[in-house]
């Protein structure tokens, strides 16, 4: 998009976000095209790939349920491993969606418009993947519902002091609100799909989900209020979900977990990984969908700035953890941060984490890197890997060497662990590809609205000039 990249403007100025040659019709055509068009070979190949990965999930989960979680590598002392690493990782990835949708909406960041649908879908699917793990990781998943407060005949309630119960609320709220938010935002676009449907079946299905949307002024009025309310509702979630997830660790007394810095550090990490995942997915998707006009390089650059900012917060978090370990002169903390992490059995993972999370985002100080699609794509993958490593380091390394050296032990993942991890990637990919196939990936109504606003502004400007 040479014409947009050429003039660096204030990002708060929405003018250059969407090329001016589009009108409503062309926008409709561009943005609905990928739904109506027959999927290409590429889509089918990718779909086959993700579906096979999903097959691994089925294998892994079935085997786990049949034999018990002993088929994983978890042990004593490492009671949590891939299960909780993947859980936190997926929840973190989901964070971009909420942030983009809610916070940026409230701050009236116009540039969010083209990518919010995309990010929200990602959130939803990521949270679905994440939600699998807390359920699966229990020794007796058939009793996992005991974590929910319900009037049981046993007269027993969950233990409300446990962060795992808080997790249950946090994650289920998050999933509900994200799903609602995504769906409410979809309604006008579903109506557009209904209206441009070519077959009766399509019309019926899209019509059903469009909930009778006619685009009347009253509809728009209610819709806007509902959307804004939901945005307001999800705003605290951006902070709360990962704060609560971080409590799983911070509330314990394990060196490496027991740290007051965890909540902000986890939230920043979540946004960091979430935006990286958006970049990872949006770069190929916008090419495939032909959306470069709508999801422009300016969008990508702005996201890279967020990655840089949150990456620096994460680096600060690492620094503070090490500083406190030194400053407190606590023997156990000192061992965890300076001996075990840096030189212990998992030192390789630690240094990979430092390379990916501390060093990589710093390339975005340079505009060249911020705007180079291949560089940012590789960097975003590095950040995703780095954030996975971070959870590995926090969870496995801290557990494997805690207070009494007699109990120290090594964790090694088994094939089932990998199966389930790759399987959730497959689940995520499958859902995402289906999303791209059946639903507009960009919020058409919002883009149109933006387009209109831009035109109006341009008109007023020219009018005022006369």
């Amino acid at each position: 998009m040479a014409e947009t990249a050429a003039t660096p403007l204030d990002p708060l100025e929405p003018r250059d976000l969407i090329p001016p040659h589009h009108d409503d019709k062309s926008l409709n055509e561009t943005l609905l095209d990928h739904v109506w068009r027959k999927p290409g070979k590429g889509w089918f190949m990718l779909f086959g790939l993700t579906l096979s990965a999903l097959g691994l999930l089925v294998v892994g989960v079935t085997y786990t349920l049949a034999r018990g979680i002993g088929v994983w590598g978890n042990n004593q002392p490492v009671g949590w491993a891939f299960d909780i690493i993947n859980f936190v990782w997926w929840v973190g990835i989901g964070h971009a969606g909420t942030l983009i949708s809610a916070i940026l909406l409230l701050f009236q960041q116009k540039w969010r418009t083209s990518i919010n649908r995309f990010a929200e879908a990602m959130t939803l699917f990521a949270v679905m993947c994440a939600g699998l793990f807390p359920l699966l990781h229990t020794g007796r998943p058939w009793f996992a519902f005991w974590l929910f407060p319900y009037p049981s005949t046993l007269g027993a309630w969950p233990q409300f002091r446990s962060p795992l119960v808080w997790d249950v609320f946090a994650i289920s709220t998050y999933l509900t609100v994200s799903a609602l938010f995504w769906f409410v935002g979809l309604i006008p676009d579903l109506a557009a799909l209904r209206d441009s449907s070519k077959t009766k079946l399509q019309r019926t299905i899209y019509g059903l989900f469009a909930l009778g949307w006619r685009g009347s002024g009253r509809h728009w009025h209610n819709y806007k209020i509902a959307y804004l309310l939901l945005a307001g509702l999800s705003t605290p979630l951006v902070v709360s979900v990962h704060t609560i997830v971080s409590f799983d660790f911070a509330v314990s007394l394990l060196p490496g977990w027991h740290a007051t810095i965890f909540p902000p550090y986890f939230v920043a990490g979540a946004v960091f990984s979430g935006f990286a995942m958006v970049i990872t997915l949006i770069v190929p998707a916008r090419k495939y969908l032909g959306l470069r006009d709508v999801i422009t390089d300016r969008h990508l650059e702005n996201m890279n700035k967020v990655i840089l900012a949150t990456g620096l917060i994460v680096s600060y978090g690492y620094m503070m953890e090490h500083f406190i370990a030194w400053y407190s002169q606590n023997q156990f903390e000192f061992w965890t941060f300076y001996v075990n992490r840096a030189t212990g059995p998992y030192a390789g993972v630690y240094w990979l984490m430092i390379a990916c999370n501390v060093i990589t985002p710093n390339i975005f100080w340079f505009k060249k890197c911020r705007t180079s699609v291949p560089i940012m794509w590789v960097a975003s993958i590095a950040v995703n890997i780095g954030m996975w490593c971070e959870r590995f380091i926090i969870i496995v390394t801290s557990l494997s060497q805690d207070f009494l050296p007699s109990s120290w032990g090594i964790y090694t993942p088994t094939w089932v662990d990998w199966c389930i991890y790759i399987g959730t990637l497959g689940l995520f990919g499958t859902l995402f590809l289906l999303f791209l196939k059946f639903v507009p990936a960009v919020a058409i109504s919002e883009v149109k609205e933006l387009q209109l606003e831009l035109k109006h502004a341009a008109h007023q400007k020219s009018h005022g000039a006369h």
Partner: protein
Amino acid sequence: MPPMNTKRDGAPSQESSSFALPVVSDRPAAAPDAVGEALEHAAANADSAEHGYGQSYWRSLEEKLGTSEYMEESRPEFPVGADLPPTGFIRREFMQLLGASLALAGATACSTRPADEKLLPYTKTPPEVTPGNPLHYASAMTLSGHTSGLLITAREGRPVKVEGNPDHPVNQGAACTFEQAWLLSLYDPSRARVLRQGKTPRAQRVLNETIASLVGKSASENGGSRVRFLTEAVGSPLTSDLRNHIIKKLPNARFHSASSNQDTQAETLRTLFGGQHVAALYDFSQADIVLSLDADFLESCPGNLRNIREFADRRDPRKGKLNRLYMAEARFSITGGMADHRLRLKSQEVLGLAAAVAQAIGGSAASLAGAAAAKSPLRGELGNWVQAVASDLRAAGPGRSLVIAGERQPAAVHALAHAINNALGNGDKTVRYIQAPIAEATGMSEVRTLVQDIEAGRVDTLVITAYNPVFTLPDDVGLGKVLSKDHPARARLNVLYTALYEDETSAHVDWFIPAAHPLETWGDGRSVEGTVSIAQPLIQPLFNGMPESELLAMFLDEPFRPAYQLLRDYWRGQTANAADFEARWESWVAQGFIENTASNPVAGSPDFGAAASLVAGYTPPASGDLELNFVNDYKVYDGRFANNSWLQELPEPITKMVWDNAALLGPDTAKALNLAPGDMAELTYNGQKLTVPVWVVPGHADNTVTIALGYGRNGLHEQVAKGVGFNVNPIRTSKNPWFDGGATLTKVRGSYKFSLTQTHWRMENRPIALDMPISELEHPSTETQHTLHRVKGELKPGIQDNLVDFDYSKGYKWGMAIDLSRCTGCSACVVACQAENNIPVVGKEQVGRSREMNWLRIDRYFEGPENDPKMVMQPVMCVHCEKAPCEYVCPVNATVHSDEGLNDMVYNRCVGTRYCSNNCPYKVRRFNYLHYTAGKTATEKMLMNPDVTVRNRGVMEKCTYCVQRIERARIDARVNKHLIKEADLKTACQQTCAAQAIVFGSLNDENQLVTQLTEDVRAYKLLHELGTRPRTSHLIRVRNPNTALEPAKAATKEGSH
């Protein structure tokens, strides 16, 4: 259901005895009930005909030998209806059926017993049986010639727990790992079940007839000169008597006895006492200074429990002045870990050391020392050590020291040890010479004679009752060779063998007779100090086993008498006044042993002139850099416990290795040989080669390699033992069965994965297992003060202590104290816990994944230089924190606190998030990652303690402070309207600990020992600084080093590394 013996022996008497044992007797019951009548009727109509059951049970040999499970599947242990819900009437019926089925299993075992013995359900429940209440029976177990006194807990007719007999002079309530785990062997589904001749199953009648005709024929032809018996060392009076009777019947028959150890001491004492059979008893309670010459007296020798108890009392500063132990050894042993000064040296150097000490002591010892010193020169740098030890020994005063030689050491070392004791005036004080309970020569030379006889064709019949001699003896003894099918002398040899398992020996025999487990039959035996124990059965034979006494009695060609009858007849004969025999018998059986049967002291004193021949007869082992050592294993002994999964999974006390043995090396030697732990190496010795994996143990002597015996089993049906570890007997020789020089070890390709329960041996300077010289405790240095403040100082309010306190001052406040000074690390407590709490065995692979399930672990740390470290043992189980980190993180309230301070685990509620374990700083929680309790056979299920839940997959578990014992004590206390007394409540680990290192009780009662210990100056709380407020205290281990060898300051550092 009553114990089986009440069926055979009439109704139990109603008298109560010290353990409320039902007393068994064969006199007619005072008021015969229906059961008694039925049994009498059955006995009267006894028919010794075979009834053809043998053929009908075994449809084909393939079925029988093919799979071990076959029998249990095809012949259910429990009859129809036994699996109905145990409620109301059904529960009663279940018990009856259970009892009946077990009894029938036994009844069908021996055709010579009444074959149509009918069991009837109780119409009147015997007075001692209340379903749900345990019964205790005294019994005994014989290992290595020593019979220990045990107390067995039975639940509804099933023995479920073995404890030491509190009144027995050696056990005094304690039991070692072997004695406790021995119960598991009773229920072992791989035990032999079929009496067979070759591959043909036979009835016992056929065996009986075969033996009768054999005895008759050889008695008339040659007086049995072609008959040989190979037995264990015989300590049992009944067996000796049977042997004497057989000799009477077959005057030319010969008995040989084989034993895995203890031959050198006996041989030495025979020489010193002019051919008398003499044993030495040691009194550690009086010994201020102890020098152990490679003697692992705390663990490896028979009767060790008494040694542990006496020794531990002398390590406790509350009980007075500490003793001091000097230890010289090659491998790191349990005793070595307790030493104040441990000298690492080759086993062959021990003689030189003994000679040097003897020379320094002077007197009668010095004359022997000269000759010995010439045979084993001492390294110059050890002179200082020798002088320090000698002056310490002398300074202790007469009768206040003790020198003890190890069983692996040659007679010359034993002679020197006795000479030094004599010179120090220890005779009759710390060393007492008594008439040996085992009055016979035993050992490999005996078996060698037998093998020579067989080779020369002088033997027709060989009866083996010894444990698996083909496996346990070095291959060069040649027993395996002469018994193998292709040996020329084999054709005319008829071999009978009785054992619990179809093992390596049974593969070579003509007749195999499944033995009755000692808990299935009557027997007797003598302890190391001579006390006779009467062993009563707890259950009818589960797998058709035949008692050894009944087998031997067949050679008498007399009418059949069951083991019970044999035993009673013998002891009736020993009782001068036959009239009161019944009363005496009842008290013997009830209390488990016969009072005042301890051996008498021997007349005369040792003649050290005779000992010169022992020193002269000693040939130094082959020269060469690397010394090869063999030791009996701490877990499977000589292999006889190899099929016992509790012991296989018990962490080896020093290496913490499970399910394996290894070539153990010191760190320097391993470095010099370029070997790392887990490497494979080729061991060459005496022209033989063996590929073994290597493990490195800190503190192992340089240039020595130690391998434990008893592994690499290849028995026919020993499924647990099969393929575990490495068999070293092929390279062992009968000439130097315990150590020899001239071995080489070379690295070869490949590696081996060991499973260890503890992989990190340093404390990393953390104050965990505290260990310091007593002087340091009395006058702590600044550094020690700092450490003590950390582990027992006031908690900082608001920082380390910021939760609301609960008022525990009313009622009971359970707590525990573990004295590290006393703990040897022997691991008896670990087995006790496993038996008491139904703890599953998970196997080598799962332990390798760090998922062992033992609730109680013994952490073993080395401190100091890697080559010559000190060792400290620390038992750790749930410490029951008052502010428990596990509790607040559980999302479902599955682990909660009781108002008596127990950290309770609610298995039913647990969903298995493992958060509690992650947040437990002591890592004492254990998780059922898989369904470890699945797939138990019917007999294995009988072992389960009904008071403790058998946990399912996906559930967390941990030490409960034996809450089931607390509750049982509470019920008793409430019934009797008093508070739970200290004596009434012992946790399983505490109960079995010979060292009395573990004490449990209510901390609200200041008179209880646990309260006193908790307030002791040595008491501290593990990870105290976290503010978890554990209820378990550990007591600092104190050492008593000789300042001449270890300057006071040097020892103040703990965990330096």
